[in-house]
């Protein structure tokens, strides 16, 4: 959290750390073109949320993003950043308050990494000391060693350059970030790592982010809200990822999100988003009769055996209980377990792999949390409200 | 301005002499460029084909440029005395670098994919050179020849001080021909150089394979951008 402090506490313009963004009936029409590039686009992004603009190529998603920092000027309508129309601002000044990350990154090859990151602070006339401290903070924030500040972009790998691009955009602690396919040119493995890193970073800095991508999976992963655009810059649907997958507005959206949208929804929720099944337990050495009684109370045909430290060590079918006290030897060892952070999709896979037997879920300290069954997972998919809905727990994921 | 009028008048009055000297000028240019081509083209093309010797092939034109023409001629005079041979050697030395460097860059820079495709289809190295590399390299090779020609036309003028024969004879001999003669001959040399430039530019266009003309080529600007930036236009 200290990262944002240099920028904020001492800044000549003490920015809010995030600002809401609103598109109001925005249209963009290029001269000598019969069709608008953006048609009557309206949506609003609450402060601190990631809004993903997604759609097929030619849908105007990049154009829509560039309207915000006036790299392209809108034809009609208005865009409000923190309640203020961007059209009233001088473009250069406006842009210094908005972080900007593009696919090719566009690092300045003739400047060191530190100089690159210091670009906007320098434009804003920060003192040297403060800029220097901010650069160090940002390198740390994006997990780059501070020695890297003296290197030139050509000496860095693609992933490192992308981190520098993000750090550079964050330099003046802008209330809004624009990111145009920021991870598009990175190989899949590193892309996923950078995505996760950015989500972790965002949990810390809580910027308002407009994120452009053509990849629906990336949109679902990164977005708090997703705006799907169709050709001609028309908004097809604006919703949370879960709503989009559960209730696509029309055929276009349904096709765009894909036939596997049910499975995609499962990736959105983790086991701590749902109420797990209670399961009877027995400690090693408990009397068989007590154990059988406890199972009978819950109408269960199986017990989870715990050791002295309350750690589950196996599952014991009630039928195996003979007169002897509960013993670890009688129980089936735990072949697979899940944690609260396991996604529903992974949980489903584990359940199916274990012949649809409910899966044991553990708490972070290794104690038993409960069981998850096929029925529970499929119930979570049903669009319903209440504690079981992944939608309700969406925020908790971060 | 009167001097220019007199200069043009001189051209009219002495067309015979000027024509004679122009022919001599062109003969000297042609001979020098011809010899330079015989030396430079095979070396440049061969090195380019082998993708070897880039340092030599590129830096020769830097060295060539660093040789002031008048200084070179003066060395020639000091060693060989005044005469045709001295001028000829100086002109050849000056014409070799642009031809060699351009030939090298042209052949070396031919799209590797095209060469590999040719090899993959079973062409011998010689066939690759003759059927793929040379046709594609031709425009840039030709640009080198053009630079050499224009350069030699200009330098042949100066060579008059060392016993060359051409339009420079008049320009360096103001005592005999007076200012109008000098101006008239200067105009002739300037026109000659510009015409050569134009003619070769048109020829270069004509020999450029049509497939290469379509794409907006800015040919051969890798390392040669530093070495010979003006070779193309």
């Amino acid at each position, binding site marked *: 959290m200290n990262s944002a402090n240099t920028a904020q506490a001492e800044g000549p313009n003490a920015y809010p750390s995030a600002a809401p963004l609103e598109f109001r009936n925005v249209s963009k029409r290029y001269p000598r073109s019969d069709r608008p590039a953006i048609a009557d686009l309206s949506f609003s992004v609450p402060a601190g949320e990631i809004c993903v603009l997604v759609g097929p190529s030619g849908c105007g998603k990049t154009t829509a993003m560039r309207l915000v920092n006036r*790299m392209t000027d809108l034809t009609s309508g208005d865009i409000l950043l923190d309640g203020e129309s961007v059209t009233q601002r001088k473009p*250069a*000044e406006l*842009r*210094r308050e908005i972080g900007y990350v*593009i696919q090719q990154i*566009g*690092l*300045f*090859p*003739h*400047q*060191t990494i530190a100089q690159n990151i210091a670009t*906007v602070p320098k*434009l804003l006339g920060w003192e040297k000391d403060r800029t220097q401290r901010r650069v160090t903070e940002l390198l740390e924030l994006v997990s780059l060693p501070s020695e890297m500040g003296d290197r*030139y972009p*050509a*000496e860095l790998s693609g992933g490192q350059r992308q981190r520098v691009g993000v750090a*550079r*955009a964050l330099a003046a602690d802008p209330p809004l970030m624009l990111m145009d396919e920021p991870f598009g040119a990175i190989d899949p493995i590193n892309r996923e790592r950078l995505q996760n890193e950015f989500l972790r970073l965002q949990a810390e800095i809580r910027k308002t982010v407009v994120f452009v991508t053509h990849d629906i999976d990336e949109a679902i992963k990164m977005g708090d809200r997703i705006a799907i655009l169709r050709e001609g810059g028309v908004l097809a649907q604006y919703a949370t990822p879960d709503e989009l997958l559960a209730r696509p507005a029309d055929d276009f959206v349904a096709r765009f999100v894909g036939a596997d949208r049910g499975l995609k929804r499962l990736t959105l929720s983790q086991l701590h988003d749902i109420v797990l099944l209670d399961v009877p337990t027995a400690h090693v050495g408990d009397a068989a009769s007590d154990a059988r009684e406890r199972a009978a109370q819950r109408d269960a045909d199986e017990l989870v055996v715990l050791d002295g430290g309350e750690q589950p060590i196996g599952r014991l079918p009630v039928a195996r209980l003979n007169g002897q006290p509960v013993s670890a030897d009688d129980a089936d060892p735990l072949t697979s377990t899940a944690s609260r952070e396991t996604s529903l999709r992974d949980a489903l896979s584990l359940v199916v792999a274990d012949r649809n037997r409910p899966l044991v879920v553990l708490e972070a300290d290794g104690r038993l949390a409960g069981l998850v069954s096929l029925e529970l997972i499929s119930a979570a998919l049903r669009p319903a409200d209440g504690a079981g809905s992944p939608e309700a727990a969406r925020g908790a994921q971060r | 301005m009167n*001097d*220019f009028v007199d200069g043009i008048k001189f051209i009219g009055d002495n067309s015979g002499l000027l024509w004679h000297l122009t022919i001599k000028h062109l003969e000297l240019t042609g001979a020098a460029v011809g010899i330079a081509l015989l030396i430079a083209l095979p070396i440049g093309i061969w090195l380019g084909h082998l993708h070897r010797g880039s340092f030599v092939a590129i830096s020769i034109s*830097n060295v060539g*440029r*660093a*040789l*002031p*023409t*008048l*200084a070179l001629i*003066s*060395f020639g*005079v*000091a*060693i060989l*005395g*005044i005469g045709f041979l001295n001028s000829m050697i100086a002109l050849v030395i000056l014409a070799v670098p642009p031809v060699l460097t351009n030939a090298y860059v042209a052949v070396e820079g031919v799209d590797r994919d095209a060469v590999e495709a040719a090899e993959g289809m079973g062409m011998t190295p010689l066939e690759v050179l003759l059927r793929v590399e040379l046709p594609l390299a031709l425009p840039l090779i030709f640009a080198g020849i053009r630079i050499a020609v224009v350069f030699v036309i*200009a*330098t042949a*003028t*100066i060579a*008059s*001080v060392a*016993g060359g024969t051409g339009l*420079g004879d008049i*320009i360096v*001999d103001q*005592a005999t021909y007076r200012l109008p003669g000098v*101006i008239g001959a*200067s*105009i002739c040399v*300037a026109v000659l*150089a*510009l015409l050569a*430039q134009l003619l070769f530019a048109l020829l270069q266009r004509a020999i450029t394979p049509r497939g290469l003309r379509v794409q907006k080529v800015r040919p051969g*600007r890798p390392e040669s951008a*530093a070495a010979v*930036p*003006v070779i193309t*236009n």
Partner: protein
Amino acid sequence: MSGVLLAPLAAAPVIPDFGRGSTCIRDNKLFCWDWVQSNWGGTLRPALIQHIELTLIAVVVGFAISFVLALAAYRWSRLEPPVGIVAGILYTIPSLALFQLLVPVTGLSRTSAEIALVSYTILILFSNILEGLRNVPADVRDAAEGMGLTRWQTLWRVELPMALPTIVAGLRIAVVTVVSLATVAVFIVNEGLGAPIYAGLQNAFKTELIAAGALTVALALFADGALVLLQRVLTPWARTARS
């Protein structure tokens, strides 16, 4: 008809007044070090200094003109063809002719010499500056704009620094070209290293020819080397980029 003036020199080199010099000088041997020593202060050094002056003025003025023209052509690409054609024509006109053609206008003066020399730098510098600016990758320009650099800031802080290697490459060629052509200026103004060369040609005195010629070559190579060093200092990033 040709070589009226020179023919007698070539035929019968009457040894002119080479002074009370050594046998080496009196015999007009290929190179006499003692002549260089005794004429350094009086002939060669002043000529070298004049030559450097001629070159510096031409390159500085030529660079200023080319810089403005290139920035204009970068901003308004329509300007490029006319500027390129005019600069190309000037570049093509043989130096000796161009020097003489300026005589009726600006006389037998240093001004004439500089005008001609400047005109040879423009094609080289103009094309290289423009090329350098145009080679700045679009994404870098986009990022600069997106971060809120004004057009002017982008030019001075991003585009020109990135164009430096190409610009310096052009400067190297321009300097070497001017050093070479400045010797030819001797036909209209008796200055620079062309003067001792010309004098040497008049009386076929070998030492003077070789000494002045060698100084010219050395000056060209030195200037070229100095610019290479300058570029290394100015563009530390270009070295890492290649490795």
